[in-house]
Each structure stands twice: as C-alpha cells, then as structure tokens.
C-alpha cells in the first residue's frame, strides 16, 4: 500500500473479494472505484491513463476477478495503455491445488501483458511495484500485472522504503534516435515534392503533440492521423487532412497512395491503415519513428527507420529541419492543388432528409454542440466509432478514447468512467452503439454511485451496423439484427440515470442540449436509420487504391469496390 502511494497512485479501479483486498483496501488513502465488472475496471484504468497521462491502477480478486480483466488487458497491450493490474491470488502454500477461486493468472496473462510478476515474498513487494510501474509507463507503454498471493499481502513485512531507482538488465527502452538516421530523415524530407505526415497514438503516449505540431508548422506538410492519433493536430489546422485508413477520409488515403515521402511517427502500420501490405508504400520512401523496434519493418518495408522516443526524435528532427533553407509552402503548391482537387469529393457527405435520423447527422450535431466545452469523447466499436472519428472536432490530445487495435466492443462507457474519475471537471461524452453499449452497460450504477456525470449517446440502429454492412458482401455471415433491444431510457432510469429518447430529426438539437445541461449522468437513446452504411470503406485485404466512395453505393446490395 505504501508503495502505491509512493508511486503517486490516487485512484484505483477494481472489484474486491474475500480472498485478498477487503483487508488491504479497507484503510487506504486512495479513491477506490468499485466497478460492477472487472473488465470495466480495467477499461476504466485505460481511460484514466489516456485522459490524464497517469498510469491507471486496477485491483481485482483472484480467479474470476483476474480472468475477467483479460480482454481489457489485451486491449491495453495493443493500444499501448499504461495500466498496472494488481490481482489477488490464493496463498502460496496451496497454489497449484485447484483451490477455490484459483486460476493460473500469470500463465493466462503472459501473452497479453507487457510483463507480469508473481510475488512470493512480502519483502519483494516494494521493488516489484516500482518495477511494474516503470515497465508500464516507459518505452512503449503497456499493461503490467502483479499477482499477489493472500498470505504475501497479509504478512507484515517491515517496510524498508521503496528502492530509489529501477535497474532491469534486460530492459532499456531506447529514447534518443540515432543522429545519423535523423539527419538522413531531414535530408529526405527537405527534398520531398509530395510529402505526407502520418501520426499515430505514439505521439500521445510520448506527450509529443507540441513537437508534432511544430514539425507540421515548420515543414507545411499535409498531415493525417490514425484513429489512435486523433487530437495531436487540431482538426481546424489548415494542413489537417483527416483520419486515414479503412474508413478514413478519401483524400487522406489518396495522399498516402500518391506521396513520394511518408513520415510515419508513433504509428505501427496496422492493416486497417495500410490495406494489403504488399501494395502499401510502394511508390514512396518511408521514414518511420517508433520507440518499439519490433513495430518497425513488421508489416511495411521502411527506408529510414528511427528507433526512439517520439518526443526526443522530433526535437532533434525539428532542429535539423529548421536549418533547412527551403520555402516549404511555396515548394509544395502543386501538391496542395492536387489535394484540393481530391477534396472536392467529400467522403463524409450525408444528407439529412425524411423522418428518420441519419446517424452521421446525430453524431455531427453532438460534436458541434459540445465543441466549445472541449470534451473528452469515448466510443464503442463499430459504425458509430468510425463516423465519430471521421467527423471528429478536437483541438487537444488526450481527449479521444477509443479501442483501436483490438476493437473491443463495450470500451466506451468504462473508458468514459475512468476519464471522468481522473478529470472530474471536464465534460465527458460516450458516443456508443446500441450493441457496444450493452456489453458493459451494467456500470451505469457505478456512475451514479461515484457521481460521475458521463453523458452517453447511444446511436441506436437496432443491430450490429458494421456487421450488417459486411453482410451485404458476405450474405452467409451471422445475424447482425437484434430483434429484442432493451428500452435504454427505462434502463437508465432503473439505474438512477437520466434517460432521453430522440426519434425525429427535429428533436436532435434540443435533445443533445438537454442532455448536456442535465446534471449527473445521462443516457440519450438516438434512434437512427438502420441501413445507413459507413463510407468510405477500403475492404480488408485490398490495396489502399480501392477506396469506395460515397454515392457510388447508395442502396446497392453490393459495393462496387468489393468485386
């Protein structure tokens, strides 16, 4: 406990049990947020980390308590979220005997944590806690699990103070980039004719948004961001292209296809960004900055790899680029003109007409009406997530919470919960899908209990919209329509949360305003057009060239680009 205080832990998300933590957590200085499900606790810790920049802490029971966290831990691993999970374990003496609530948690989580520990001696706790937090937040951040047997915790070892520093001989994250590589990158950028900057979530983890903006401002290069990187460049920045990738903005993807130099920063070239690996980046030289050497050359062949912390590398790179004698903006005019031509086709275009609400309209209105509050926005996974990302309006990093790599439905509410717990005075919105919301909706009660005024907007198309969209191509895929959905308004009210339903386009604006002005948590059920498709789309396994545009598809039963 003392070790946790020394690590600066103030908030713990969790679910206690008789096995371990009822005793440990009874007399403590932390804000302990008891969630109704351990997955929620761990996602909340992710939201807390991403929103505040401080490592999230989770405390759960042995056996089912720990295994329930596995989804969220995997999510944190893929999206590089620094969380520490303290899990209870049965006493050392009976371990391996299949006793009540025993599970091999270290074995189970070996593949989904950055590292995990089993503590066998009470006197090791201070060192292990120190190492756990260090590993979680340094280098490429990630989840660390510490498995604590009951007898080890209860034993009163003399607390000899925390170790002052951490020395792990097999773990030395590389921070400074190689000067020669940085020089090479600067030279390549200086002579690029059609360059594009592509930023990812790593910029946020490295707290390097300022340096990133500086890079964009120095070089005047058009910039796109991955789903995880949203917020590192304000969406009203003149060089902002929009999100790229599978459901990315058309011209952002066109820039990736036609550029001659690609500057990828803090990204890992996920397949949802690149499409078919074999076709990606063939026409251009790629500069790739990442703190994790395994992310470089994994999927895409890179010309100038730079292993290092994004912040350190960008500082040096910016210094080198400032010395370059080039009138950037005027040199790139031809490139800008080409992009302007692509921009004539707005892939996010939607028309709100008729009596049903277009989901894009609802989301656009939520984002527009809340922009002045500079809110933190979390999402579930699916169509609503992609629409929100496409239409996103944000000016600062750490305001955008979404499950990218793993695509965990049910991420929205817990992440919003965690963010609100970390930053109580900022507006936190959860823009969710009806099915995503149902994965973790039991924790509405937690919002009430801890007075966390999260505003949830359920974009309700009565089914798994993204799957429904896919079914048009693969008719044999499983059912995406859910015939019986709960009444979200009644459900909210049953939990002690305000409930609002919006069914007609003319109610949208007033409904959203009412939700924002209602004190405490609110659930807004926005019933939208069921068959609306999320466009543009770059089907999986296809090159970036085959982006399907809006208007080409309308009500067809198949996508032209999919044949």
């Amino acid at each position, binding site marked *: 406990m003392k070790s946790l205080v020394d690590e600066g832990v103030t908030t713990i998300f969790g679910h206690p049990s008789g096995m371990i933590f009822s005793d440990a957590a009874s007399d403590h200085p932390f804000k302990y947020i008891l969630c109704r499900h351990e997955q929620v606790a761990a996602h909340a810790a992710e939201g807390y980390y991403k929103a505040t920049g401080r490592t999230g802490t989770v405390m759960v029971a042995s056996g089912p308590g720990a295994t329930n966290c596995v989804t969220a831990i995997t999510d944190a691993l893929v999206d590089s979220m620094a969380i520490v999970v303290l899990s209870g374990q049965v006493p050392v003496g009976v371990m391996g005997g299949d006793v009540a609530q025993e599970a091999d948690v*270290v*074995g189970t989580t*070996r*593949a989904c944590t*950055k*590292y995990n520990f*089993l503590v066998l001696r009470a006197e090791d706790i201070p060192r292990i806690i120190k190492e756990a937090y260090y*590993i979680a937040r340094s280098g490429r951040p990630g989840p660390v699990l510490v498995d604590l047997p009951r007898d080890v915790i209860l034993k009163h070892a003399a607390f000899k103070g925390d170790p002052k520093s951490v020395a*792990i*001989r*097999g*773990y030395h994250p590389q921070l400074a980039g190689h000067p020669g590589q940085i020089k090479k990158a600067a030279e390549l950028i200086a002579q690029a004719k059609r360059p594009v900057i592509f930023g990812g979530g790593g910029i946020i983890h490295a707290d390097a948004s300022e340096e990133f903006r500086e890079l964009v401002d120095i070089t005047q290069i058009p910039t796109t961001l991955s789903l995880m990187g949203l917020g590192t460049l304000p969406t009203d920045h003149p060089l902002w292209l929009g999100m790229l990738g599978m459901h990315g903005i058309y011209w952002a993807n066109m820039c990736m296809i036609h550029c001659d130099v690609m500057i990828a920063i803090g990204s890992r070239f996920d397949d949802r960004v690149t499409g078919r*690996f*074999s*076709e*990606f*980046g*063939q026409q251009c030289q790629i500069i790739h900055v990442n703190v*994790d*050497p*395994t992310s470089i*050359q*994994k999927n*895409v*062949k890179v010309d100038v790899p730079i292993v290092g912390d994004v912040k350190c590398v960008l500082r040096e790179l910016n210094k080198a680029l400032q010395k370059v004698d080039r009138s950037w903006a005027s040199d790139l005019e031809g490139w800008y003109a080409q992009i302007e031509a692509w921009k004539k086709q707005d892939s996010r275009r939607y028309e709100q007409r008729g009596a049903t609400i277009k989901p894009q309209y609802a989301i656009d209105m939520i984002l527009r009406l809340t922009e002045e509050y500079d809110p933190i926005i979390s999402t579930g996974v699916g169509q609503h997530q992609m629409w929100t990302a496409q239409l996103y309006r944000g000016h600062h990093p750490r305001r955008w919470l979404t499950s990218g790599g793993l695509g965990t439905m049910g991420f929205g509410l817990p992440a919003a919960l965690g963010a609100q717990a970390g930053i109580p005075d900022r507006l936190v919105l959860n823009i969710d899908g009806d099915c995503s919301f149902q994965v973790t909706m039991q924790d509405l009660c937690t919002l009430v209990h801890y007075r966390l005024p999260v505003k949830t907007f359920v974009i309700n198309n009565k089914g798994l919209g993204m799957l429904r969209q896919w079914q048009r191509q693969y008719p044999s895929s499983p059912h995406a329509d859910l015939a019986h959905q709960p009444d979200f308004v009644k459900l909210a009210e049953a939990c002690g949360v305000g409930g609002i339903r919006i069914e007609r386009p003319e109610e949208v604006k007033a409904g959203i305003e009412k939700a924002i002005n209602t004190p405490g948590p609110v659930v807004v059920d926005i019933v939208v057009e069921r068959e609306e498709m999320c466009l543009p789309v770059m089907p999986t396994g296809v090159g970036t060239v085959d982006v399907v545009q809006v208007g080409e598809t309308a009500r067809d039963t198949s996508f032209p680009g999919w044949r």
Partner: protein
Amino acid sequence: MREQAPARRHILTLLVENRIGVLARIAGLIAAKGYNIDSVSVGETMDNSMSRVTLVVHGDDWVMEQVVKQLNRLIDVVKVVDLTEEDCIEREMILIRVNAEAPNRAEILRIADIFRARVVDVTHRTYTLEVTGDEHKIQALLDLFRPFGIKELVRTGQIAIARASKAAPRKLEREAGNEEQVESKSTAGTP
C-alpha cells in the same frame, strides 16, 4: 513489402534471467508469432542468476529480424546473438539405442569408432551409444545406423559458442588468470 528470401537455419544464443516462466515466455512468443523451433536447450551460466538458451529456428531474413527483435523485447531476455553470421562451434549430444543382432555387432562398433561414439550400455540385442557432434555429423551417423534399426533416440538440442578472436594475444600473462577465456579457448581448439 516482404521480399521472398530463402529460409535458412539460424542458431540464436540468448542470455536470459534465471527465473520461473522465462522459457515459457520465449516459447510462447515464438509460437504466437507462428515460428517453429527446431531445438532448444537451456542451462545456467557462470553467473547463476542468468541462463543460456540456445534456439535453432528456421526462417528467412525478414522473419529472423522480427524473431530477434521480439526476443529482445522480452524483459527477461538480456542479450540475443544470431550466431549464423558468425564463425561458431555447434554441438549436440545424442543417446541412441541400435538393434545389434549377432551378424551386425562388429559393424556397428566400427561405425561407432569412426564417429567417436561411446558405448554406454550393452545387451545381447542392442547397443546404446553416446555421440557428440554438429548437425551434419549426427545426421550422417543416424543415416548409417538406420538400416540396423534405431530403437530409441534422445537428443539434447544444439548448443553453440562463437569462436574466440584469432588475433594474437598481446599479453599472454593477463589471460592466464582468466578462467572463462581459457575455457573458451580450449573449446575453440577442438576439431
């Protein structure tokens, strides 16, 4: 884009923390990435807080770059060296039980002699032999014994060590006191 390079056999030597679960981490990582381990051997080093792991893996250069980087990323792995590019000595020991009926008994012993194999157990119908050598020697021996009928075979997996630098030592007396260097020298000297 991935270029198709031919798959080659690589010997990786790893220095790892001597802790519970380290081998599981290495095996888990390699399995999760879909690579196949040909052999693995583990043992303590002179420093008992560390173990030496020797892995034999097949893969093209692209795969091997990833394997080495992924292994390096494991927190319990202190050092990874791919010995394939270096001049190294590799050895494996096998215990082999061969059918030895009366007409073949002399022939089997002659082959064993050529390969410097030692008989460690003998019955009226079998010989059990111990042999040490590199991959090619072991394979050649197995090919020769196969016609007699191999009843059982146990292999240790490959171990390997880089050859020490052949540059003439500047001061011989300094090295005399260093046990580890002397040891590696003597290994390097064996044919």
